[in-house]
């Protein structure tokens, strides 16, 4: 045990003094993630607000019809109407960006409406504009105008408006705020911590195996009177720890980011904070341990095989994509935690985390996820140990 502590202490000291590891493990998740999240969210919110408040330049071709709609549009202070555009030039004006949208009222609009038929209002806009805000704002106004006509028609016919709504659907969403946020935002949490767990393990694994071979320290280390398995275990424990620390720091980074996003609605903020209760956090962290063990064993095996730091890096870096894919799959609608997906590594963590955050995790499936991860981690560690004891692996390129 003492020897293990000695090896672990040395490997950990050596690892945390490595700038690359520190950057990936602490600086990136704790500084860059909150910074990026804050900047991106604030920019998005600000541009959305701008799009909402922007005074729209709208070409209006009334063709002498719908005076009510013309009046409604004219009364709006957030619209600047351009009325001297010939009807056939509307699209050209939109194309040259002279106007943001155009409302063209059909020549027979009033006649159609007066005989209780449908009149046509053509709306020209660019769907590629920010958040489709132009369309939403104008259809809102036209919708109001339509309501007025409908109300007038009902009044003229002496008919109760409820006659056209024989069925009233009363919606009762029994999903709690925790559940709703868990199913949507919850998918992002594993996305962050799985990636950071992998990345946090990556550099220490490369440095402690391929790096040692390249520096020539492995040879002398293996002449010390300690079993090679103990050396492997010491390195392995450090890689697991850095993976877990990195994942925890990334979650902390998200919390810091949430606190910094000043424009987030307080009710949403409170709901997010309520989700992160002790039990939820502990359950999520309990998934992290076997995942980190699996990553560490897998990464150390590859790194041990590589001849040099560079070779290990080029073998391991593309695997980031392999890890991201199952996490992304967890975000797809329709993919849920079931007895089959609970067996697929990484995807099972992603889905189980979503369910844990939503508070809908089933104990049986959670146990299946643990079981699958523990078996996989054990196999990976066993394989890594066997691999480490092979002369051909240790002295490949030495």
């Amino acid at each position, binding site marked *: 045990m003492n020897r293990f502590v000695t*090896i672990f202490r040395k490997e950990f000291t050596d690892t945390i003094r490595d700038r690359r590891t520190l950057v990936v493990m602490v600086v990136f998740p704790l500084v860059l993630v909150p910074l990026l999240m804050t900047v991106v969210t604030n920019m998005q919110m600000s541009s959305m607000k701008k799009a909402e408040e922007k005074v729209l330049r709208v070409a209006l071709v009334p063709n002498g019809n719908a005076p009510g709609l013309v009046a409604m549009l004219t009364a709006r202070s957030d619209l600047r109407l351009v009325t001297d555009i010939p009807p056939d030039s509307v699209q050209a004006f939109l194309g040259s960006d002279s106007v943001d949208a155009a409302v063209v009222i059909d020549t027979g609009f009033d006649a159609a409406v007066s005989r209780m038929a449908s009149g046509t209002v053509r709306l020209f806009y660019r769907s590629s504009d920010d958040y489709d805000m132009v369309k939403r704002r104008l259809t809102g106004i036209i919708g109001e105008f339509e309501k007025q006509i409908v109300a007038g028609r009902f009044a003229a016919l002496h008919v109760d408006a409820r006659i056209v709504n024989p069925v009233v659907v009363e919606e009762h969403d029994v999903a709690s705020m925790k559940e709703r946020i868990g199913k949507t935002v919850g998918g992002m949490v594993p996305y962050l911590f799985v990636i950071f767990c992998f990345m946090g393990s990556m550099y220490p694994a490369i440095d402690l195996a391929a790096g040692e071979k390249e520096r020539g320290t492995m040879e002398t280390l293996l002449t010390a009177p300690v079993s090679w398995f103990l050396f492997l275990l010491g390195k392995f424990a450090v890689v697991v720890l850095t993976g877990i620390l990195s994942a925890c720091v990334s979650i902390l980074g998200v919390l810091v980011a949430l606190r910094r996003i000043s424009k987030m609605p307080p009710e949403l903020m409170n709901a997010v904070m309520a989700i992160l209760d002790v039990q939820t956090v502990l359950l999520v962290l309990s998934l992290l341990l076997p995942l980190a063990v699996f990553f560490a064993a897998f990464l150390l095996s590859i790194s041990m095989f590589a001849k040099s730091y560079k070779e290990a890096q080029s073998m391991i870096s593309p695997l980031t994509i392999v890890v991201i894919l199952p996490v992304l799959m967890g975000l797809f609608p329709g993919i849920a935690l079931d007895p089959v997906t609970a067996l697929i590594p990484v995807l099972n963590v992603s889905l189980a985390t979503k369910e844990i955050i939503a508070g809908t995790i089933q104990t049986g499936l959670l146990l299946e996820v643990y079981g699958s991860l523990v078996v996989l981690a054990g196999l990976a560690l066993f394989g890594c140990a066997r691999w480490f004891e092979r002369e051909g692996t240790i002295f490949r390129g030495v």
Partner: protein
Amino acid sequence: MIVVDHVAKTFPVSRQQRREMGPGFTGSRIDALRGVSFTCNPGRIFTLLGPNGAGKTTMLRMIATMLRPTDGSITVAGFDVVREAVEVRRRIGFLTGNTGLYDRLTPDELIRYYADLYGLEARAFAQRREEIYALLGIGEFAGRRIGKLSSGMKQKVSLARTIIHNPDVVVFDEPTAALDVVTSRAIIQLIRKCRDDRKTVIFSTHRMGEVSLLSDDLAIIHRGTLIFSGTYKDFENQMQTRSVEDEFVRLVEAA
């Protein structure tokens, strides 16, 4: 004492290695050593000489328990390198010319680490460290990160690491390769001190000057086979050329 008895070592050759070796190589294995036997005694310096690729490093790695012989046996201080590897490791110090160190640790931390691995008691460690620091002049840079040290300083740290546990057997694999004259001389002095302290010393080298300067016993390996083994005096007595270097070349070419 080191006893090497009819040792052979064979390495499997991968498909990639076969490609790298060219169309002339068709086998699936390489015989790095074939039936090599010799004995290194305490209080004597045993030199292992041979051209590049002769099998010197493979032999020293087997003595240091890093590789296992395919055939034959090796005992170090009476312990078998395969069956009693940990006992062997307790008794040896191993140094190579390209020994790496942990750049992010200080000499103090590194030497303490190895002392802990060898299970040195705190008091014995403190005493031993003091002796070695005085011998090699490490004290003045013991607290600096190894990555910031000169190559001479680093080699001194490597030496300290090699002998911190006061091993009975010391294995030096080309210890002066790529070192300047001053540092090489410090190593040569240390090798001599090890002999004076009645340790078993085995070292491999390319430098003929070191052979005549240090050797009590000598073995020459060429293509995995022993082509000379005996005392250095025996070697001198059978020389058919004027210098050690010429004689070495003659033996290798004749083999």
